[in-house]
């Protein structure tokens, strides 16, 4: 929190006032996206911060895990914030917002219910943009070692001597 504020020089009130998202993600500055309560923050260099906020929401709607904080999704998509991919992302987000408007919403981020956002996504499921984002998330999200414990997965085990004396057969409810 303090770090974010000192970076942006904003109070929490200003930060909330300038945020455009109803979801968990806020655009907080010219090149800045922050999580709800600003527990994390991410600078953007090539992609517009509003577009990055939309992309993060889209990522969560594709692979929604309520016990995963936003920063995991931000990490999963931050690789697109490069000169090479920015145009494709901007075009894709523009198409996503257009699809949202086609269903009577102001834009994608302003849709309140996940169900309604998913309906927009379903309509563009076959597009190259959707498939690129979805495909990238499979490793971008689930291959973050920090998310593994949140699913119970224990990862590397050799350095601890395997599970031979650490519960390979400890199931007790059968």
């Amino acid at each position, binding site marked *: 929190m303090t770090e974010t504020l000192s970076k942006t020089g904003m109070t929490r009130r200003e930060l909330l006032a300038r945020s455009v998202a109803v979801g968990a993600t806020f655009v907080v500055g010219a090149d800045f996206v922050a999580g709800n309560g600003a527990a994390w923050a991410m600078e953007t260099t090539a992609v517009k911060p509003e577009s990055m906020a939309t992309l993060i929401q889209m990522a969560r709607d594709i692979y929604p895990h309520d016990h995963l904080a936003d920063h995991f999704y931000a990490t999963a998509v931050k690789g697109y914030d490069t000169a090479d991919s920015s145009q494709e992302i901007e075009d894709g987000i523009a198409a996503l917002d257009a699809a949202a408007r086609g269903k009577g919403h102001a834009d994608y981020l302003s849709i309140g219910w996940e169900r309604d956002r998913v309906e927009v996504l379903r309509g563009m499921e076959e597009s190259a943009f959707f498939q690129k984002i979805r495909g990238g998330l*499979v490793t971008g999200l689930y291959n973050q070692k920090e998310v*593994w414990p949140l699913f119970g*997965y224990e990862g590397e085990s*050799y350095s601890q001597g*395997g599970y031979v004396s650490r*519960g*390979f*057969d400890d199931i007790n409810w*059968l």
Partner: protein
Amino acid sequence: MVAKFDLNDDSVVVIVGTGAGGGVLANELAQKGVKVVALEAGGRHLPEDYLNDEWDAFGQLSWLDARTTSGDWRVAKDFSGLPAWIVKAVGGTTIHWAGASLRFQPHEWKALTNYGRVDGANLLDWPIDADEMAPWYDQAEEKLGVTRTGNRPGLPGNNNYKVFEKGALALGYKEVHTGRMAIQTRDDGDRTPCQQTGFCFQGCKWGAKWSAAYTEIPAGEATGNLEVRDRSHVIKIEHDDSGKVTGVVYADKDGNQHLQKARLVAVAGNTIESPRLLLNSASNMFPDGLANSSGQVGRNYMRHVTGSVYAVFDKPVRMWRGTTMAGIVQDEARHDPSRGFVGGYELETLSLGLPFMAAFLDPGGWGRSFTSALDQYENMAGMWIVGEDMPQETNRITLNSEVKDQYGLPAPNVHFSDHPNDVAMRDHAYKQGIEMYKAVGATRAFPTPPYPSTHNLGTNRMSENARDGVVNKWGQTHDIPNLFISDGSQFTTGAAENPTLTIVALAIRQADHIAKELSAGNI
């Protein structure tokens, strides 16, 4: 001590590939005093290099050269550039294999006779049978140290196995145990016993599981008769005017090409690369590729009827702990057409880590139906189906002249569509697998589609008659007496069993034959 042979030494046997087939053949020949140069496209990686991390290990060791796919299998849609999961390294796919080591059942050697003609299938009997293979299987089981053979005990059951076993017994299955695994269990052998680390698919860091990388290859090198050249990719087999092969052209790690002369060439690059090499070696004399007078090179590609069943329970299973595949139900492996298909299937325990589960549970899936499954990852159990698929002439490896590999050679295209018998078998297996887990209280089950092929078979098949296949009962090509095939591409039919024990048994037998023929001056 390690041998070094001259490029112009035409007294050597050249082996292409050092996996289950090539690695075993190389060691067996070297033990018999035959001089061998084994050329391996991949590098050397030993247990200290292996990574307890699914994607890192995949990136470290997999064959990632350009490949394309076609046909109606789902792999062509979801993993279009990755038809198969194969290792490129000294030791080949025996680094990533799980170790399940089963003999064919006697009837499976004679599929055409025992199943009869099946529409659309190119069934054929093997020119060998269970009696012929029994002593070679004995040797293979000793070499691999297979549990539940000889006097070796089985592995202990892990959490995933215990769920699987309880479900199997509840359904009345009788042949249920922790498998016949090429995994060390006791402190009495050359290999460290299994520490239940759970990364069998990533390479066993303890060396408990058999792999040619750290058994066959060093043992062969120690004889002074075997030279393994790693990062040496064979691109063409050469022949003379009499139609006998004379050597191979390969690219070294820097891309420089060399010609290694040979008195005999044995191809063991796994079922996609082996026929590709024969096709890419086409010449004026053999315009359709080497050893292809039958037109069968590249055809009858088989990958087993596979699929997985994962299920979620209301309490933790932690299936990833311990051996990846030590659990089996064999009751459905019989041939019993009353189930609606010929041939049979095995059910084996299987677990994937979270990263692979996300990629393979339901490729392309998204949204809450997908993520609510992964949310229960800790409470999941899993099994794999492996059953006999039908050889079909149209399932085949061809050269794709539009896509080139790093040497400018046409990439292989892998075309596969299920036969109706395959579909019927898979559906039956899904149903049984789901019933097993329901019997233990599963709250949700997932019939997961096949992954990129791990069992690749049949594209240079063995046949009695030269018109029906590519090699004879010794793996010697019908057309060229000093050209042999030594890997899973020899398989006439796939049987229900994981193939590697049979590949190894065939390689031991082939080494015996080649050594005898060479010393008798017949080749």
